C-alpha cells in the first residue's frame, strides 16, 4: 500500500511538472528583456525587475491595428465567453428539459437532430454560418461573435443524462404538489443539478474563451478583437516581435479561465463525479 502510494505520487509529480513547465517558461519569459527568446538564452529564473511588464502589457495598445489595449481585448473575450457559456446552458437546459420530461410528437426525431449536430462543429459549417451571420448584419458585434457557437449538442446531451437520472417519483411528487413545468424546472431541477450546471459552465467558459477561428472571421473590426486574436496579431514575422510582451499578454489571457476554474472547482468536481441524486 505504502509503496504504491509512493509510485502514484511520483507519477502525479511528474504530471504536474509537465503541465507547469510551459506556464513557468511563459511567466519567467515575460520578465526578461525582449531579445532573450530570440537570442536563445531564456532564463528559467524570473527577473524581478521585469515584473512591470504585466502592467505594461495590460495597457499595451500596439497589438491591434487600431490600438485597442489588451484589457479591452480581455473584456471582449470575457463577454464572448460569458455569453457563449450562459447562452449554451440556457438553450440546452430547455431543450434537454423538453426532450426528457415531455411527450410530444417527433420527440425522438428532435433529439436525434440535436445529436446529429455533434458532427457539425463550427469549423465544418464555417462558410454557411458566416453567410447567415453576415446577412443578419451581425458581423462585428457580440451577437455575431457568439450566436453560432451557442447552439450546442454536447450540453444538451449532458443535461439529458442528468435529467434522466432524476427519479421519476421526484417529478411525480412535484406534479402532485402542484408545480407546473417551469416551476418544477426552477424549484427542483435547477437546484438539484447545480453541481452539473457549474461543471458545464466551467467547460463552456473555457471553450468560449479559447475560440480562434470564428472570431478571426467575424470580428474583423479591431473593436471586437479577442485576446486570442490579439496575441496572434502581436507575433509578426516582418518586424521584431516583443516576446516579453507576448508572454505577459499570454499570462494575462490565462488568468480569467483559471479564476473561473478555481471559483467553481468544488462544484466542478462534484458535478462530474456525483452519481447519487
Amino acid at each position, binding site marked *: 500500500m505504502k509503496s504504491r502510494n509512493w509510485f502514484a505520487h511520483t507519477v502525479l509529480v511528474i504530471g504536474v511538472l509537465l503541465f507547469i513547465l510551459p506556464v513557468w517558461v511563459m511567466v519567467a519569459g515575460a520578465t526578461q528583456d525582449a531579445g532573450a527568446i530570440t537570442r536563445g538564452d531564456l532564463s528559467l529564473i524570473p527577473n524581478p525587475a521585469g515584473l512591470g511588464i504585466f502592467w505594461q502589457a495590460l495597457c499595451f495598445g500596439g497589438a491591434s491595428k487600431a490600438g485597442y489595449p489588451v484589457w479591452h481585448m480581455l473584456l471582449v473575450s470575457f463577454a464572448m465567453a460569458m455569453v457563449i457559456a450562459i447562452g449554451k446552458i440556457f438553450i440546452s437546459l430547455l431543450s434537454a428539459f423538453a426532450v426528457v420530461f415531455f411527450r410530444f410528437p417527433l420527440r425522438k426525431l428532435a433529439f436525434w437532430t440535436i445529436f446529429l449536430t455533434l458532427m457539425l462543429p463550427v469549423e465544418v459549417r464555417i462558410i454557411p454560418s458566416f453567410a447567415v451571420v453576415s446577412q443578419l448584419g451581425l458581423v462585428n458585434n457580440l451577437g455575431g461573435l457568439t450566436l453560432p457557437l451557442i447552439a450546442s449538442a454536447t450540453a444538451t446531451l449532458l443535461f439529458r443524462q442528468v435529467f434522466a437520472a432524476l427519479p421519476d*417519483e*421526484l417529478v*411525480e*411528487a412535484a406534479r*402532485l404538489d*402542484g408545480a407546473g413545468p417551469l416551476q418544477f424546472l426552477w424549484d427542483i431541477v435547477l*437546484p*438539484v443539478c447545480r453541481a452539473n450546471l457549474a461543471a458545464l459552465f466551467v467547460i463552456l467558459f473555457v471553450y468560449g474563451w479559447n475560440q480562434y477561428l470564428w472570431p478571426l472571421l467575424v470580428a474583423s473590426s479591431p473593436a471586437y478583437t479577442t485576446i486570442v486574436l490579439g496575441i496572434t496579431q502581436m507575433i509578426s514575422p516582418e518586424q521584431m516581435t516583443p516576446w516579453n510582451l507576448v508572454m505577459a499578454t499570454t499570462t494575462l489571457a490565462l488568468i480569467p479561465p483559471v479564476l473561473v476554474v478555481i471559483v467553481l472547482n468544488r462544484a466542478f468536481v462534484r458535478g462530474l463525479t456525483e452519481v447519487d441524486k
Partner: protein
Amino acid sequence: MATLELQNIAKNFGDTAVLQALDLKLASGEMLVIVGASGCGKSTLLRLVAGLETPSGGKILLDGVDITAADPAKRDIAMVFQNYALYPHMSVAQNMGYALKLRGLSKTDITAKVEQAAEMLGLTPLLGRRPGALSGGQRQRVAMGRAIVRQPKLFLFDEPLSNLDAKLRVSMRAEIRRLQKSLRVTAMYVTHDQTEAMTMADRLIVMNAGKAEQIGTPMEVFARPATLFVAQFLGAPAMNTLLPLKAGLTDAPEGAMLGIRPEDILVGETGLAMAIDLVEPLGSETLIHGRLACGQSLTLRRAGGPPEGSQIFVSLPDQKRHYFDAATGARL
C-alpha cells in the same frame, strides 16, 4: 373526508391490458388496501387515481366530481411514495411546505401548518434538516407530513413501508393507521405484504393480473376467499391445497381443489397418515411440513410438534374446508 368512485376503469399499455374493467367505491374516511403480487396492476390503479396515468377507459369520481381528465395538481390528492421522493435540496420544513407555497399561502400560514403536522409526527426537532441527514424512518415521516399538511381529500400510499426494516415497518404500520383514523381521511394503500394488508385495511382488494379477485373486509376475505388465488395469497404460511380424490377424500365435489389453512388441520389417532419432513419452530408456534401417503405435501401450524421423521395422523374438518373449481379457481 371524501368519497371516491371508480367506474369501469381500464388501462392498457400498448397491447397489454394492465387493468381490466374495475369498479370500486370508497366511503368517506375508509382505508382501502390494494394487495397483490408485483405486476398485478395495483400501482397502476393508484397512479390512475393520482392522475399520473390516464385511464384507457372508465371514470374516476372524487366526491361525485368527475376528475378522470383533471390535472394531478387539481385533484386535491396527496401521495406517499415508496422511495419517499423528498426534494433533496430542501429542508424538512420546505419539503412539507412546498405544496402550500405553490398554492400561494402566506409564510405565516405555511409555518403554522407545517409545525402542526411536524408536531403530530414528532418531526419538530428535524424541521431544519435536509432529507440526506435523516434515517429511513424519519424520511418516511417527512413524506407523510408532506401529504398531511395539504389536508387533501384523499391519501394515496404506494408501498410506503417496503424500504424500512422489519421492526420499523411494524411500528410505522400502526402509526399510519392511527393517523389515518384520527384525521378521518379517505385513503388507498398499495402493498404486496399480506400482513400490512390484513392489519391496515377497512376493506381490501386482492388483485391478480389486472383484475380484482375479491373485495371485502380483511376477515371476510380471509375466512371466505373467493378464488384459489386469494386463498393462497392471504395468510402465512399459505393455505394448503390438495387434490381430495388423490388423498382418498371421496366426499369432495367433482373436479374440486380442496383448501385448508395450516391452523385448521387436526392431529389425532386416526385420519390421513402424514410423514413429517421439516419442523420450523417460531417460538409461540411451530410449523410442521410433511407429506401424505399419496405424495401431496401439507403444512400444519401448531403450538408444538412431534420430531422430524415421525409419522402423525391428520384430519381435515368439514367446516374448515374450502373448495375451489380446479379449472377456474372460483369458490364452489
